[in-house]
Structures are given as C-alpha cells and as structure tokens.
C-alpha cells in the first residue's frame, strides 16, 4: 500500500530541469529589447493564453486539428484494415499489392506534400489525404502480420468443421489477429497526429493548430508558438492515453492465457 502511494507522489528532482529551463527562458526575455522580441516572457505567454482563449482562436483550431486527425485516422485505418486483411487472406492480392505498398511507403510522408499540393490543392483535401495515409501504413502492416501469424492449426480446425473461407476469416483469423490490429491502430493514432500538425504547417490554407503556428511565426509571436506547441503535446499525450486505456479494457480477455 505504501509503495503504491509513493508511486503517485512525483519525485521532486524531476521538476528541477523543467523549471530551470523555464526560468532561463524568462531571464533571456528580460535581457534587452532584442531578446524580448525573440523570447516571450512568462507574462507575455500568459497574456497570450488569455487572448487566444477569449478570441476563441485556440478552440477553433484545436477543433479543426483534432477533427482532422480523427477523420484521417478513421479513413486510413479502415482502408488499412481492408487492404491488410486482403493481402493476408489472398495470395493474388499479396503479389499485386505488397510491392506497390512497400515502394510508396519509402517516400517520407511529408515529401509527398508538393505532389499533393499540385494534385489536390493547398487546403483540407490534401491535409486529409496526408493524415489518412499516415494512419494507413501501420494498420496495413499490423493487420497483415497479425493475420499471417495466426496458428495454422486453428485454420485446419476450421477446415475440419467445413467452415467457408469467410467463416474462417470471421470466426478464427480476425479474432486471433485483433490485438495486433489494435497495436497498429494505436501507432496509427500517433502518426496521424504528427501528420496533422505537419500537413497543417505545409498546406497553408484553412484552420488548424499548424496553421495557427505558421501565422504566429510570420507575425513573430513567440508566445503563441509556445502555447500552441504545448497544446499539441498535451493533446497528443491525451489521445495516446485514451487508446492505451481502451486497449487495456478491450483486450482483458487476452491476459487470461
């Protein structure tokens, strides 16, 4: 009991470095006019928080980014699940899809930005495609591997019981692969969030935290940049925490083995 209590009291030593960094930052901003311009003081950052909240700017852009990340995640992960299943189940699909999948995956995702900009414009469509792709890649891989590794014996049992191919997939392959599919899904969430911010930085049209940052950079608003970066980190952390909790809840049955 005592041990678990102490676990929840954070070690004071962990706070030293972050606080030092913040103090050093604040000190830099007070050096002279030049530094005050480059580094935002704590007071300025606080004023920035109040300003962004009052104008509703923060909320609008958080909403746009989170919505984009989740929509892209849903689209990309569903497509990834379908393609991954197909490649695992059908040899023909494997031969046709695998080489193209691996070839396209080599290109750094954000390296595709100029191409998508020419094809789909500079706004929401292109952003959504980048985010969906980022979620697509890991789910294809984890779905395929999860289903590929299902014990052949299980499939043989299915054949003995004269189950159809669909029934074997639905009753045997899919449930056995589900935990790994979910691992890919949680990876996809992290990638989707990264791709959301990245695509918003590179496609200048529309709303989003990345767009808010680019505008702040052009206006030399360091306070806004610091706040938005912090918000991006917190949101990313919360989303991954949510996935972790969901995974623990969904796959309780697995720990019985």
């Amino acid at each position, binding site marked *: 009991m005592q041990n678990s209590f102490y676990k929840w009291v954070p070690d004071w030593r*962990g706070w030293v470095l972050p606080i030092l960094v913040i103090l050093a930052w604040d000190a830099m901003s007070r050096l002279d006019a030049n530094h005050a311009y480059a580094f935002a003081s704590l007071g300025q950052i606080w004023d920035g928080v109040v300003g962004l909240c009052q104008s509703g700017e923060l909320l609008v852009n958080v909403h746009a980014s989170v919505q984009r990340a989740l929509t892209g995640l849903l689209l990309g992960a569903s497509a990834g699940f379908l393609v991954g299943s197909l490649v695992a189940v059908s040899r023909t699909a494997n*031969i*046709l899809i695998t080489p193209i999948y691996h070839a396209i995956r080599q290109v*750094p995702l954000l390296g595709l930005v100029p*191409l998508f900009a020419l094809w789909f414009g500079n706004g929401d469509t292109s952003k959504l495609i980048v985010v969906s792709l980022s979620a697509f890649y890991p789910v294809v891989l984890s779905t395929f591997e999860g289903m590929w590794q299902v014990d052949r014996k299980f499939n043989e049992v299915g054949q003995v019981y004269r189950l159809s191919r669909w029934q074997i997939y639905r009753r045997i392959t899919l449930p056995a692969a589900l935990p790994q599919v979910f691992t890919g899904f949680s990876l996809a969430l992290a990638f989707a969030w990264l791709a959301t911010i*990245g695509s918003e930085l590179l496609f200048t049209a529309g709303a989003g935290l990345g767009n808010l940052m680019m505008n702040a*950079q052009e206006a030399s608003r360091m306070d806004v940049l610091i706040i938005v970066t912090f918000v991006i*980190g917190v949101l990313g952390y919360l989303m991954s925490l949510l996935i972790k909790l969901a995974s623990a809840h969904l796959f309780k049955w697995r720990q019985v083995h």
Partner: protein
Amino acid sequence: MTRDWKQFLLFLISPLLLLLVWWWVAAAGWYSDDILVSPAAVWATLEELIANGELALHLKASFFRLLTGFGLGAVAGVLFGIWMAISPRVEAFALPLFQGLRQVPTIALIPILILLLGVDEIFKVIIVTKAAFLTVALAAYDATKGVSKNYFEVARIYHLPKTTLYRKLIVPAITPPVFTGLRIAFSRSWTILVAAELLAADSGIGQMMQLGREMFRLDVVMVGVVITGLVGFSIDKLFKWAEIRLIPWPAAAKA
C-alpha cells in the same frame, strides 16, 4: 534460389502494370501537364537535373545537414541514454523532461526554431540533431535498462572493473537494440529534414520540390519524390546490412 527468383518476378508484375497504366493515361492526353506528366518526361527531367549538376548540388546540401545533424544527435544520444540508465540520479533529474519532450512531435518545433535561429543552415542542422538525439537517447536508455539485473550482479560479485563492465557487458548487450534505434532515428531525421527544407531553405532536395510546386513543374516534383524515396530506402537497407555484418551476436535475453 529459383523460388526466390520466381517470387521476385511475380512481385514485379504490379509495379510494371502501374507504370504501363501511368504511361498510357499520360499519352492519352486526358490531363494537363501540371496534373499528370508521362514517365518519359519525368525521366528526361531527371537526366537534365543530373546533367546540369542541380540534383547533385541539392543532394550535397541535404546530405551535409543530415549527416552533421544525425552524427551530433546520435553520438550525444547514445552517451546520454546510457548515462541516464546507469545513474539513478541523472535518471531522476532528466527522465521526466525527456518524457515530456517526447510528447511534442519534432515537426511542431520548426516554427519556434525558425523564429529563434532564422532559416539559415544552423536551423536545419539543429532540427535534425534534435530528432536524432531524442530517438537514440531513449533507445539507448531502454536498451541499457533492459540488460538483465543478473548480469550486473554477477559482475559485482566478481568485482569486475568498470571498464570491463562496459566493454564486456553493457556495450555488447545494448548494441543490437541501439542499432535499431539508430536506424529509426535516421529515417526520422530524413523525414524531418525534407519537411524543414520544404518550409525554409535555399537548397536541398526539399527545396527543389518546393520550387517545383511553386512553378507548377510536376516533373521536378516527381523526380524529388522518387529521389527522397530512394534515399530513405537505401539508407534503411544500408543500416540493415551493416547490422548483420557488424553485430554477429544475437540480442541478449531481456530482464
């Protein structure tokens, strides 16, 4: 061997089909040149960019940033990661900050760094260094933490000197996972560099693509996409090849 060849040839079918469809659709002339260019035009542009030395210039600029940034970040990362795993004091002070920093995608730091450092060379090197450092440091930390406690106990019982402890136990045990960390860090560094060059650069493969985008030169953009893909792929393969050559022993048993 023959089976491998058969497999290889089968895997060529769909890329060749794709190329054929691409070539055919482009030749049919349904789309304008800034939407779709033929594979032949992309090839011609590639030859032109090689001939006039432009591609070499961009690649040189990109590689310089990549290697400098990655080199700095990786060396510092390995050392710091091991230090943080071995010393409880360093761990207590630094790990929370590390875990916090990890939550922020490196790409989100680009605007702040541009504002602080400008768009010069130093900005691109630092963003790559940061990406490499954090990834490698965490890999080295996890790897060292993963070395079985039993080994350390045996070392203590035998009063193994510190240098022997490092040379015979820690380094061999953590090399395989650290190498994997280096490989991942390198591909992340490459991605982040291309993104940084797209946003702000006067040279580099990313800037070449960005210029192509602004001038509606789809052929230049396509060449850039293929080259970035090839570079990423080759580096990844190089790391995997080196991993097999340099590390003959398998990963150690986990704690």
